[in-house]
């Protein structure tokens, strides 16, 4: 019996999965074809969505970048006639095909069912071994044994801090309290990180089962999933998963006939980055403003509502059932000495294959970016990878052979964070990048402690001064000193790591800062005040596309006339460059002199 599956993770949906499904339905109905139309989650090939899998005779053919227009051909040739359309195939049996390099070097634990099962149908998950681990735990293992097993696996928290999961479980298990809580931290907030979303959307049961096992191990009967409201699909599938698991007897009272009870509730976050910090997250569940508090006491002894609480990240929990089923040793055999198992990375930016890749800890940056990710887009040159989100750092080409694990990255000034990798090419200005992350940190600072609330603001202003082209070397010194002070004096992880993007870009790309300050140029031609957008009149064909697309009306000219740019109005968005069919518009660095004069006029009061 044939089956056709459409990828319906957020990536698939965004790429147009719904239209593809409609087209498939129509085609199947109209031609009265006997085939089951189903859906599945994200397999990680986000750049090839919409993905359509055709399953027949134990063979699976995945078509990539499917549009509704391609559907009739897929149906008539492949499904009806049995002739696969080779040029559209992305993967065959998950191994061969155009994208085989992306998949081959991966080793999937967390993502093992993603893209294979229908996330809205628990039976699919069960067929692939779902809920076997909780059965095994209840039937064969004591709670202490489960804790020991997780400890022995060497699994460390995948949310960023990298605390040993088994130890956290042990502390919470040993803490005394009338009741205990398990919290799944699904408040994924790092720009460029989306592995948690994908797991929740594609295999919610992996997380539910992880929480169940945690509850069994720790002695908790209640679980919360704190999921950001910006993930509506994840919330929907979690809710469906919880309902289905309840009906199956995996959640609720007397689970699988034992005396273990466990219930899970979803709490939707309201979009504050800081709520990913565990104490702020708990405050938010309690109905308070999400602001971190000092630790100790740690959640393990006094957490949600004052009860012992174990907070684990989505990816961490999704590892658990595999560890219980396959044993700690099998897990500990993967990875490096201090970083065991796999890590899922979200590859974005100027990389060819943007998507999710799960690889063993210790793989080098080069292997991840080039072998798995296919290298830099448009054959440009690698410049850096920003790893670990707004709290991480930027690593240059000279560090491409750094193994990716907790300790090696910290040594280089970055962090593993939640595993977001934003790959940058030569068109990225590193000062501008630092400014971007500082803007993020400042906007998301909860406002509680002075260094983070005011310090990030002042750092941002100093960065703006640099990118605007009127900073001095003293400003750079002040920036570096302030960044160091904010790092040691802030209250929570957000403030303590917010300076990392600045510190690593200064450490590895100081010459770019100096160019902005001393030469008043932006080598990457990014910083608006330091560049000119030039319209080469000889190449211009007066098509007016640039005029129509300029969001601030900074280009003038009429039909049959040369267009002209009004520099004072231009915001440097480069929309004109991207729409110009004649390559007549490009950026250039103006003379330093000009910049200085121009910017002294526009310097905000009090800044000089």
């Amino acid at each position, binding site marked *: 019996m044939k089956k056709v599956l459409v990828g319906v993770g957020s990536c698939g949906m965004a790429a147009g999965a719904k239209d593809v499904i409609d087209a498939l339905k129509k085609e199947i109905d109209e031609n009265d074809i006997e085939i089951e139309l189903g859906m599945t989650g994200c397999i990680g090939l986000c750049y090839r969505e919409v993905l359509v899998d055709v399953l027949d005779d134990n063979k699976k053919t995945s078509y990539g970048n499917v549009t509704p227009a391609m559907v009739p051909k897929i149906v008539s040739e492949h499904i009806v006639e049995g002739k696969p359309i080779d040029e559209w195939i992305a993967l065959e049996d998950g191994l061969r095909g155009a994208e085989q390099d992306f998949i081959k070097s991966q080793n999937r634990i967390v993502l093992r069912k993603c893209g294979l099962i229908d996330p809205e149908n628990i039976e699919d998950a069960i067929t692939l071994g779902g809920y076997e681990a909780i059965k095994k735990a209840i039937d064969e293992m004591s709670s202490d044994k489960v804790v020991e097993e997780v400890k022995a696996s060497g699994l460390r928290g995948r949310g960023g801090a990298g605390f040993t999961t088994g130890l956290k479980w042990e502390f919470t298990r040993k803490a005394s309290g009338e009741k205990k809580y398990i919290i799944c931290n699904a408040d994924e907030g790092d720009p460029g990180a989306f592995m948690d979303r994908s797991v929740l959307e594609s295999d919610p049961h992996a997380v539910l089962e992880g929480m169940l096992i945690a509850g069994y191990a720790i002695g908790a009967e209640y679980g919360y999933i704190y999921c950001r409201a910006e993930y509506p699909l994840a919330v929907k599938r979690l809710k469906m998963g919880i309902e289905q698991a309840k009906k199956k007897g995996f959640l609720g009272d007397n689970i699988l006939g034992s005396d273990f009870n466990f219930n899970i509730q979803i709490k939707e976050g309201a979009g504050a980055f800081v709520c990913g910090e565990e104490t702020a997250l708990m405050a938010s569940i309690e109905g308070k403003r999400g602001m971190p508090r000092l630790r100790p006491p740690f959640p393990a002894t006094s957490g949600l509502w004052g009860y012992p609480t174990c907070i684990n990240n989505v990816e961490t929990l999704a590892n658990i059932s595999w560890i219980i089923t396959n044993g700690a040793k099998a897990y500990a055999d993967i990875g490096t000495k201090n970083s065991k198992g796999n890590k899922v990375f979200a590859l974005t930016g100027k990389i060819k294959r943007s998507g999710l890749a799960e690889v063993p800890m210790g793989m080098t940056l080069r292997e991840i970016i080039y072998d798995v990710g296919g290298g830099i887009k448009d054959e440009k040159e690698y410049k850096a990878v920003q790893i670990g989100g707004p709290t991480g750092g930027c690593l240059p080409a000279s560090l491409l052979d750094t193994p990716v694990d907790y300790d090696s990255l910290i040594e280089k000034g970055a962090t593993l964070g939640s595993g977001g990798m934003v790959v940058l090419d030569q068109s990225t200005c590193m000062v501008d990048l630092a400014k971007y992350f500082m803007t993020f940190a400042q906007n998301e600072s909860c406002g509680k402690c002075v260094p983070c609330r005011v310090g990030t603001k002042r750092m941002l202003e100093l960065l703006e001064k640099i990118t605007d082209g009127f900073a001095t070397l003293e400003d750079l010194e002040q920036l570096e000193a302030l960044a160091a002070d904010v790092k040691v004096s802030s*209250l929570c992880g957000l403030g303590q790591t917010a300076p990392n993007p600045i510190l690593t870009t200064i450490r590895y790309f100081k010459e770019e800062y100096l160019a902005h300050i001393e030469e008043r140029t932006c080598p990457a031609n990014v910083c608006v005040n330091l560049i000119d957008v030039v319209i080469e009149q000889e190449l211009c064909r007066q098509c007016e596309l640039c005029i129509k697309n300029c969001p601030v009306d900074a280009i003038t000219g009429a039909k049959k006339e040369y267009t002209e740019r009004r520099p004072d109005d231009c915001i440097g968005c480069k929309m004109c460059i991207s729409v110009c069919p004649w390559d007549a518009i490009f950026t250039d660095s103006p003379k330093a002199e000009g910049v200085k004069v121009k910017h002294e006029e526009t310097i905000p009061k009090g800044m000089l």
Partner: protein
Amino acid sequence: MTEITLSINGEEVSLDKEMTILEAASKLGVEIPTLCHDPRLKPYGACRVCLVEVEGARAPLPACATNAADGMVVKTDTEEIHRLRKTVVELIISDHPLDCVTCEKCGNCALQDLAYKYDITESEFKGEKHSLEPQEDDPFIHRDLDKCILCGRCVRICDEVEHAFAIDFNYRGFKTQIGTTYGKSLKDTTCEFCGQCISTCPVGALIEKPRLDKGRLWELENTLTTCPYCGVGCTLELQTNNGEIVNVSAPLDIGVNGGNLCVKGRFGYDFVSSTERLKTPLIKKNGEFQEASWDEAIKLIAGRLSDIKKKHGPDSIAGLASAKCTNEENYIFQKFIRAAIGTNNVDHCARLCHSSTVAGLATAFGSGAMTNSISDFADSKAILIIGSNTSEAHPIIHIEILKAVRFKDAKLIVIDPREIKMSKFADISLHQRPGSDVAVLNGLMNVIIDEGLEDKNFIEERTEHFEALKKNVANYTPEKVEEISGIPADGLRSAARMYATSGASSIVYSMGITQHTTGTDNVLSTANLAMLTGNIGRPGTGVNPLRGQNNVQGACDMGSLPNVYSGYQKTDDESSRNKLEEAWNTDLPTNKGLTVVEVMNGGASGDVKGVYIMGENPMLSDPDVSHVEKALEKLEFLVVQDIFLTETAAFADVVLPSVSFAERDGTFTNTERRVQRIRKAVEPVGNAKEDWKTLCAVSMAMGYEMLYESADEILEEIASVTPSYGGITPDRLGQDGLQWPCPTSDHPGTPILHQEKFTRGLGKFHVVTYRPPAEEPDAEYPLILTTGRLLNQFHTGTMTRKTEGLDEIYPVAHVEISRFDAKKMDIKTGNFVNLETRRGKIKAKALVTDKSRKGVVFMPFHFKEAAANILTNPALDPIAKIPEFKVCALKISKAD
């Protein structure tokens, strides 16, 4: 905890209890700067100026929030630490308007001090500064958000101390600011205007609005005194400039309030300098008051009173003393009535609030006062509040109770006809039908005995008449009580278990218990319940009536009651009488004196001819005001001493100007029996005189000698004739006062009564049976009216309504009606309604609220424009003679 030792800057310090590094350092005299720290609040660690180096720690730690540990090596004084602190202060200063020269906080600003220490005149960091409009839409709190350093102390004190939750952080990042939900005016939030936020603000962001432009801090004179409002007896500091009160603050380390105040204590002082104050004696001639000299007035009073006494006998004269006046003045007043006039007809408004407490607890325990102390709630494991709207009537006690409930895991049971603020914090909240308290309390005891939860040892060793009680409460099954009170049987059972099994349970009550025709019965029932479970005589337990007026306890203690002399020495006890006859050098009367309502009845019937009133306003405070009016009109002679021309004074023949609490010395006794000093801060207005001086002058003119140099001299005399005040002498009072009984000069005072044995020996169980209220709803008057207090007003409003801001917050009487009843009668909030009882009819604005339950209407009694006491029932408790203010039958109709 075992002793630990740590080193701070190389010096060792040993600690025997858990402490933060900040506290440990202060033991060594090592100063660590703070901005977000206030000892009243939980550690927060946000401002980061208290960072210290701890050996082995990854980064510097906040001293205010890090516990000291054994072997810890702390450095507070390194170059690195000073650099970090300076950076933090520079960052704060970079967003602070440096307008210290005109800032009200100048000289007492923590940020200014730090800038001085680190020699910062202008921040190294330049950039955007906040520029927000000051928030001025309420009468009391000036909020200048540009000066705010976001230490969060105001937010936390509003939550952790005041339990009001009116403000929080809004927005994120640099845009973060403190505010209300949706930026509403504080008047439209749960703000209680206690001003605790102002008291904790380290900078000039929050300032008492009335204080603005009234002088620099260093120009102000401070006088430590006691608050003149409710019975809690908060210590406060009157700040004066050129003889005018310009601000009130409270020192953090003195008194029952520890730096906290309520809206009245902090802001309700305008009345002192009101232009309406009486400045000179007034004599009514041809129906008009005319100014007179003191001589003329005293002569007239002495003459008229002597005449009446001669013609109709001394018992035709009565005196009403005052719970607002000092102990000294009450003592002098009753001495004047008894010794100079020659009658026991002396009473005061305690009759209307807690006479049933005095009567009930005295028979059960032998002493009619709060058994435990306010600070004692911290030791309670369960607190039962019945008939007390604590948060509005005794705000500082509400703070202490909720502190125990929210942060120390004490359980809270609230039994009240209304859904009051305390109900929302309760573990068990029950709503009884007004007037059914005896049934409810008997029901609790029924469950306790039925389930064997009583304290058998305590009953055996400390009490008598248990069997009779047991037999009686057996009739009150939870199901029967549900029928009478409307409280679900299961709710009653849970409450009984919670109270009986906590280990240390306290009962708190107020006028919801006392102001009934069954008031004494209600009080006896609370005593029964406490004794049954052994919850008395230990920390965290007790029967704790909360007294309503600043010195109602003292006025009772001083013998401003018809049946007792000071210290509750009975007038019908011959040895007491002989003792006082000797001390006062005269024969004393033996008549059974009249109570407040009986005085008014006597006036109406013509038996009472002359009345002398000191500082009371029965025209608003007594039930059935029309009846009072008739009585006052009929009197031959009425003298009123007061600070204002009150509704009552308007009926007087002579009105004498008195001084306010701020203009005199003396003592008040608070609800926990603590005798505390008040101290003169400003000069009397006009020719106003202290009440005791006036009384002595009248007495002298009538031929009985009373001569004193000072209030202290009177207190000496009180100590000499009053056993329970025997050791309470002026030299011993100090800042914190003394709690009676304090019989001797070396006695430390008594925080907890009845510890080893009851004052009367054995505690006595009383058989109390349920009686319905004197008036119950019927077809004609289908609703129940109950009356009470509001937070922002006080008593008959003579003080609070002369403070503009207080009146702005709650300017008119609202009738609180349940949604259910309002819907039935098509009444909406803001509609005028007619309220009618068998006594009278008034018109007032309706407030439809969830606070009121179906069938029960609430009305405050503070407002003369809509005087609730026109409606109330003067039916009396047979023993204590307290009127039934809390229940009468009412009908309502929509007025157009």
